């Protein structure tokens, strides 16, 4: 444990309560590791609800307007005699996306792994602002409570899509003084706005903390270009959050004012403009996509290098391509709006910038392949999930080119092709990244190993059912199947495609059920897993130099000194195939 000799630890007053009570240890903890675990459980808990909502949406699409089993407890007006109402259907897909994006992927990738990994991997004792960090988590919980509770207010939860396009999400005041609430949702939409404003504050606190910590608190010798790529990715993600979130917060405030105090930011009758919402939303929304995928890219990079026992291929190209993605991510938002009525000339410009942003993504894929090339690949559970991340991200990236081409987008925009694309990026990408990260860092987070057999079964079934669920959605989209419709059978031209909806739904149920294996493995391993050694994967980065379980202050008496980059696997300097960043070599050899 840190003691009085170490002013760095003292600056945070860490050891004042080295053995805090239960409440300070598990609930209002300021320890970054505990906050990371808290974010992880918040995300996994929300995932249960987000997933169940997806299942209900899928039932409706496969067997439209039939009675849903097991839903007798849901009251009217959501379900009437176990029949789903169209308004409730809209709420379900809206909240499925909102929860998965804001309360699952972001809390886990950014909140959980950002908090847990940044101090450990840069060799710091904690975050720069531990109290702000705790506040960030609890404000996030408040946001989640507001969001989930919106199902309980009259009129139900928000139902205008996770994008909440105005004026559907707005309240229209007509020229004759009548008021039109086009979505039929009352306070649910207001709570949606409030929840995301609150969550924005939480994320802002987190991102300021991450940026400050990474800039100021790196261990001696940890230069920027010796940082693991996962830290690079979290650093860039934090900058994206800092720059993009205030725009969403402003837009949400404007929408809330429109709805509650009678402004007309997005209402043409009052002099506002409906498309302005889309510009503001996607100015945030596109960087948001990269906020959700960059950390997974970093995670995959670290795991691929570790289990290929090989340095990452093109470290600098990997770091610079993430910066390129982050920068370009701010000038491609218009590609969500090609058919919105935005000036077509502007659409052309956004098409070119969108084509350009595909290049750094391609560079990353090639470098991952380069990392595998000539390696000594160990097929551990985290490695399989990281490989799945790469191969699924390839599909999600390639399908994006179809939408980038504006004329083709004319046809596939707002169809299931888009739904397929976003799920290949966010499930195939981000979520396989999450699984890889949980399996990989679980030993350090919880001091125990996860069960391997269950891990392999969970991986293979998830990979199989994921593809069976989402790949056919490309076919539906190319067939013209619109997204967000309640009953495909209302359209003659969709009748021949309905068998795919049934197929997808059955696959989705299997995919959902498979996740029970993950939950069992997680909880069983938490209490009964094999105790983990300090460095079970023989990895190089600093978190594996910290003791397991990792004490408050992380590194004991002295902070590590960093001598080299994070990926010195199979280095000719040493007989073993790994060389930790903080191991001093005779002769002071400090490569890369």
């Amino acid at each position, binding site marked *: 444990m840190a003691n009085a000799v170490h002013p760095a630890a003292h600056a945070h007053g860490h050891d004042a309560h080295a053995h805090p009570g239960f409440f300070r240890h598990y609930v209002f903890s300021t320890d970054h590791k505990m906050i990371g675990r808290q974010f992880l459980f918040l995300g996994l808990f929300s995932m249960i609800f987000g997933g169940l909502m997806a299942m209900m949406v899928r039932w409706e699409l496969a067997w439209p307007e039939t009675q849903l089993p097991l839903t007798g407890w849901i009251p009217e007006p959501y379900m009437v005699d176990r029949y789903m109402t169209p308004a409730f259907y809209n709420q379900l897909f809206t909240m499925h996306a909102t929860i998965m994006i804001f309360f699952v992927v972001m809390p886990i990738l950014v909140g959980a792994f950002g908090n847990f990994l940044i101090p450990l991997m840069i060799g710091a004792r904690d975050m720069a602002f531990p109290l702000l960090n705790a506040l960030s988590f609890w404000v996030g919980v408040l946001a989640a409570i507001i969001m989930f509770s919106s199902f309980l207010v009259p009129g139900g939860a928000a139902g205008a899509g996770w994008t909440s396009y105005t004026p559907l999400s707005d309240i229209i005041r007509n020229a004759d003084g009548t008021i039109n609430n086009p979505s039929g949702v009352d306070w649910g939409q207001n709570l949606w706005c409030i929840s995301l404003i609150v969550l924005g504050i939480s994320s802002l606190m987190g991102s300021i903390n991450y940026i400050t910590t990474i800039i100021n608190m790196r261990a001696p010798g940890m230069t920027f270009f010796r940082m693991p790529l996962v830290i690079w990715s979290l650093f860039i993600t934090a900058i994206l959050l800092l720059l993009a979130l205030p725009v969403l917060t402003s837009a949400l405030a404007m929408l809330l004012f429109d709805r509650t105090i009678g402004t007309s930011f997005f209402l043409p009758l009052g002099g506002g403009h409906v498309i302005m919402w889309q510009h503001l939303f996607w100015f945030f929304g596109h960087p948001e996509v990269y906020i959700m995928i960059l950390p997974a890219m970093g995670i995959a990079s670290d795991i691929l290098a570790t289990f290929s026992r090989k340095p990452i291929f093109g470290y600098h190209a990997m770091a610079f391509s993430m910066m390129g993605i982050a920068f370009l991510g701010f000038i491609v938002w218009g590609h969500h709006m090609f058919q919105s*009525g935005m000036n077509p000339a502007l*659409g052309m410009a956004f098409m070119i910038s969108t084509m350009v942003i595909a290049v750094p993504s391609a560079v990353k894929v090639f470098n991952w392949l380069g990392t595998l090339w000539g390696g000594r690949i160990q097929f551990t559970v985290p490695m399989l999930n990281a490989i799945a991340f790469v191969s699924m991200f390839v599909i999600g990236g390639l399908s994006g080119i179809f939408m980038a081409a504006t*004329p083709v987008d004319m046809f596939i925009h707002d169809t299931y092709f888009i739904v397929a694309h976003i799920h290949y990026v966010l499930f195939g990408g981000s979520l396989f990244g999450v699984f890889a990260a949980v399996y990989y860092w679980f030993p350090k987070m919880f001091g125990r190993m996860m069960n391997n057999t269950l891990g392999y079964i969970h991986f293979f079934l998830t990979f199989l059912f994921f593809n069976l669920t989402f790949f056919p959605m490309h076919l539906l989209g190319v067939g013209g199947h619109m997204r967000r419709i309640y009953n495909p059978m209302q359209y003659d031209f969709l009748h021949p495609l309905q068998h795919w909806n049934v197929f997808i739904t059955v696959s989705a149920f299997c995919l959902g059920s498979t996740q029970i294996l993950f939950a069992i493995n997680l909880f069983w391993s938490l209490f009964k897993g094999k105790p983990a050694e300090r460095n079970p994967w023989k990895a190089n980065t600093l978190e594996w130099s910290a003791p397991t379980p990792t004490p408050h202050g992380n590194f004991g008496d002295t902070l590590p000194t960093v001598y080299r980059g994070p990926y010195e696997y199979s280095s000719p300097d040493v007989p073993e195939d790994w060389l930790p960043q903080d191991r001093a070599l005779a002769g002071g050899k400090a490569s890369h």
Partner: protein
Amino acid sequence: MQDLLGALPPNVSTYGARIDSLYHLILYITAIAFFAVEGLLIVFLVRYRAGASKRAKYSHGNTRLEIIWTTVPALILVILGFTSAGAWRDIKMKMPTPDVTIMVTGKQFNWEILYAGPDGKFHTEDDYQVDNDMRVPVNKNVRVMLSSHDVIHSFFVPQVRLKQDALPGREIQAWFNVNTPGVYEIPCAELCGFGHSGMKGTLTVLSDADYAKWVTEQWPPAGSAPAADAPAAPAGDAAPAGDTAPAPAPTPSQPPATGQPS
């Protein structure tokens, strides 16, 4: 592989063929990239598995490779971008001389179709307004003036490959030219509320003779008594919602048909 297992609905419009060929071009390019990358991935996974190799290569990368695999995709994508830009310009930015102009206004949850009538002017006595029933002649340039009374809707005709959002407070022009007579659905493609699903109209594309016949039924030639089935919509009712909506151009479309009476 012709069109991703034949999934595209049959195309019936002039520019649809161009969109489809672009789609196929991208499909072939991405299919090649897909099989190359995933194939290489599998080869590496098998070839370099732990059991088959002793010690990993100690390599930090290769600058020449980085340059190659940055520039090659960049070139392909930029070429693809400019190819698409040409089609986009011709479809969205160059409006051909319209033969027929129809106003389409979305409202929860119907398409309001407004025909100008024989005088070719909107908001006059001989206008004809109907919900969801859009009739156009084959092989003619049809201009659609899109707007909305309430929320955003999206005018989508899958077989025509046309999709364009309809906004309240703004009038957006789109066009198409269909080469096959038939009846096609016009689903709304943008979430517009609880009745979004099922909001659809029909686009009936008529041969010249059938279209002329329909026009004569709607607007009987001068001399005969005004037909009861041709309700003349008062101008006020048909105006798009929102005071910012521009007034329809005073010199609009030609008469709706070639076989135009009077």
